């Protein structure tokens, strides 16, 4: 259950529309089911009242939409930002990717978002409705007469289980209580992989990346991937490629993508959320984040606007590329 209610958000949005602060509202729109929620732009109170939703399935990070929306829209837009979204928001501002003056950011607290795949693992397919009842979800399927109660806690998305921060780092207005940054265990999985032998690691990634269908969902949803044109789509870049023709190209795409967002990735986890093949792409990004923290000092992309990302920075005392391994080997 989320701390702020749908009604509170709608009231806020309606009020800001009414007093002319904003002309548009970027929010979550209800879908066919109770969990297939789509980001949408609302312009009136009627639209909001009819279709706006706020529940445990509002995972989408709106920050990236601001790049296109502020460019196109003729007025100010209200955006609701969960704590993790605010990091992407700041990172995009650092990179001058949208016009801050055209955005009214409302920070909203988040208790973590549920992963529908995990719900289905518990309740099976054929869900006809999901209702929030306190800290649980009441899931009704066509196969069961009685709704199954599932604790939200038990079906939280991986990124929410390893939430790094409940603190908003950017907003014009904050609703509800602000939280703190958290000590998460988000690097445990990375460390587990690091502890494997190279052969095991190779086998692990071969298995994961071989499922890639190059749908580009990870890239297209990523708030760090806002390039006007991605090098992989650009025939003149020399590395254009459209399909994972073989295991090399799967790796090429994901390594280069991770490298391009290294130091800029806020670890919002959208890439893994949207991957149709459930490839744990966040483990690539987190590897870079972990390395950055260990090699160059703790750095959280998006924590503040204008910070200098580690890969566009240096010290004269940085460790040598060869020492990277010595360091890990002695740690291990």
């Amino acid at each position, binding site marked *: 259950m989320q701390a702020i209610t749908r009604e509170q958000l709608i009231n806020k949005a309606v009020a800001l529309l009414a007093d002319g602060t904003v002309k548009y509202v970027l929010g979550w729109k209800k879908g066919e089911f109770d969990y297939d929620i789509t980001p949408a732009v609302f312009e009136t109170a009627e639209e909001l009242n009819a279709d706006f939703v706020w529940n445990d399935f509002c995972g989408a990070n709106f920050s990236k939409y601001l790049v296109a929306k502020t460019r196109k829209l003729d007025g100010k837009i209200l955006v609701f930002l969960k704590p993790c979204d605010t990091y992407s928001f700041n990172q995009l501002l650092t990179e001058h*990717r949208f016009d801050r003056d055209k955005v009214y950011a409302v920070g909203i607290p988040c208790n973590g978002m549920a992963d529908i795949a995990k719900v289905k693992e518990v309740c099976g397919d054929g869900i006809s409705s999901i209702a929030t009842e306190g800290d649980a979800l009441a899931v009704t399927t066509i196969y069961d007469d009685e709704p199954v109660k599932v604790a939200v806690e038990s079906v939280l998305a991986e990124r929410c289980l390893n939430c790094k921060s409940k603190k908003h780092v950017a907003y014009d207005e904050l609703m509800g209580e602000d939280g703190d940054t958290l000590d998460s265990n988000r690097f445990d999985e990375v460390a587990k992989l690091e502890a494997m032998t190279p052969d095991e690691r190779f086998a692990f990634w071969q298995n994961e990346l071989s499922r890639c269908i190059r749908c580009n969902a990870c890239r297209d949803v990523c708030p760090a991937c806002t390039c006007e044109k991605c090098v992989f789509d650009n025939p003149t870049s*020399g590395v254009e490629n459209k399909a994972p023709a073989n295991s090399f190209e799967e790796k090429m795409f994901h390594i280069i993508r991770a490298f391009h967002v290294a130091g800029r990735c806020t670890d919002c986890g959208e890439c893994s959320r949207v991957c149709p093949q459930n490839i744990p792409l966040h483990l690539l990004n987190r590897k870079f984040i972990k390395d950055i923290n260990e090699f160059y000092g703790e750095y959280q992309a998006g924590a503040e606007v204008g910070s200098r990302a580690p890969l566009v920075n240096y010290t004269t005392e940085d460790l040598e590329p060869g020492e990277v391994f010595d360091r890990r080997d002695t740690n291990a």
Partner: protein
Amino acid sequence: MQRIGVFVCWCGSNIAATVDVEAVSEALKLEPGVVFSTNYQYMCSQAGQNIIKDAIAEHKLTGIVVCSCSPRMHEATFRKTAAAAGLNPYMVEIANIREQCSWVHKDVPTGTEKAIILGKAAVAKVNLNAPLIPGETPVTKRALVIGGGIAGIQTALDIADAGFPVDIVEKKPTIGGKMSQLDKTFPTLDCAACILTPKMVDVAQHENIRIFSYSEVEDVKGFVGNFDVTIKKHARYVNEAACTGCGACTEKCPQKKVPNEFNLGMDNRRAIYIPFAQAVPKVATIDPNYCNMLKNGKCGVCAKVCAAGAIDYTQKDEYIQEKYGAIVVATGFNPISMDKFDEFAYNQSKDVITSLEFERLTNAAGPTAGKLLRPSDGKHPHTIVFVQCVGSRCDAKAEKGKEYCSKICCMYTAKHAMLVKDKYPDVDVYVFYIDVRTPGKNFDEFYRRAVEEYGVHYVKGMVGKVVPEGDVLKVQASDLIANKQLHIDADLVVLAAAIEPDKSARPLATKLTASMDTNDFFTEAHPKLRPVESPTAGVFLSGACQGPKDIPETVSQAGAAASKVIGLLAKDKLTGNPCIAHSDEMMCNGCSTCERVCPYGAITYMDKEFRMPDRTTAIRRVASVNPAVCQGCGACTVACPSGAMNLRGFSTQQIMAEVDAICK
């Protein structure tokens, strides 16, 4: 599609001995775009260049590949050749089949195979070359000389005499540098002050020269022809224009216990001081670390005695902005610290001194008014031991001294020995040496005179230790020729300390983006062919900042640096390197990533209206590269995630084509 000509050079037998040049030119004939391929004994010769020129005309070549020696050697030559034949010089690529092939591989099949691959890579690259036209930038006709020693003075005078304005920045209150501290100069034994001070006066009076003494370079921006320099003028608490240099203040100042750095601390000066009688500018300076007025507001004697009213306790550091077309570094040297050489007891006995201290001791203007007296008790010494190579020629691992030979010690030690014997023939003088190095006009003759005419004892061997005992210094040394260990009771020991670049050089190099070697000597653009230029365009080197030098050498290098500066300032416009970064605006995200890595600040951003792919228009922030500022390192090209940044001459596509050609 290009029409490429391939020219394989034999380099006599340098290439042809290990590379089948015929096979290379034949193989490359089959590469895409190649319409002509040949080989010749010496492509760089006039005849070879004519082959290229003729082929360009005959085969209407749009690009050429020369398989020859390193591009560092003859790229410029072949570019000129191409230009002479009407081809854009940047349509030339060199395959380095000499230094990186024929010279490092032994057998013909291996060499030939590799040469063909290197040739293919060059062909692949030239297929993607585009004609480049260098940009032009104006030149600010003013030079900056950093350092006012003999190197800086000579450079400044030469430039100024050619009619260009010059500014000298000197961090001490006076120009003159180390030479002003010397007594006599080898090999002619004329007095340093007699030959230096007229030059200092020339500088002071030259209409084209300004002196910023007691000043340092704070910041350097810009690039060759267009440097923007901030000079920090330290507050000297004396109005320079008003001060007449009468010296009244320096006599009345009650603070008498300030170690006199000009005499290396062997005597004292006042808190307000003029370093030496012939100082330029001859202006007093208040030392804020000792001045009672500045420290606790109690005193003000100097202001009272100053007839000119030049004292100004409220003076602040001043920052001066100036534009320069060229910068000459003349930051000089210092003797190294003797702290790590306990065996010579430098820190234990006042009678163990460095050679520079010895210079002051024999100088008529020095602490003893030129009388050779022991610093400890002012007695006349009877036995003097000179130790050479203290801290020079050391192993890097020993971490005590410098690996290089300090070059000047052999000569000045001979000079010192001779000066002693000249004034005090009764003194026993020993010089311990490893080698006596005297390559220079009249140098060896000078050294022989010390031995033969003056009877200086030159001992091949090294002093192992010096132990102060009572009022003598027990010197233990080896005499390698006699195969004996010597024990000498000396009254004075003089250490020929190694010299090192001034400490200000390293931070200055960073500001100038000029490179240095591991010893903090500035690196020259080419050790033989461009010895007075730094690799950073527009930055020149004069004197000991580039390596140990004696005065004649320093002066000649100073003149050489000046002539380079004059050559630069004589131009109205500079043509730049066209191999620079450029941004594809349609691809650019305006994210500032490239700006953050650019070491030259060459990238700026602007908001521009664009027609987007979906036919809408949008205002986007995009990067733009200042072609005059960009030096073409390519850091931005990798930082740019969208690949909007590319480097002309080393484009992503060209490098990938080379990779592909090599790997196929």
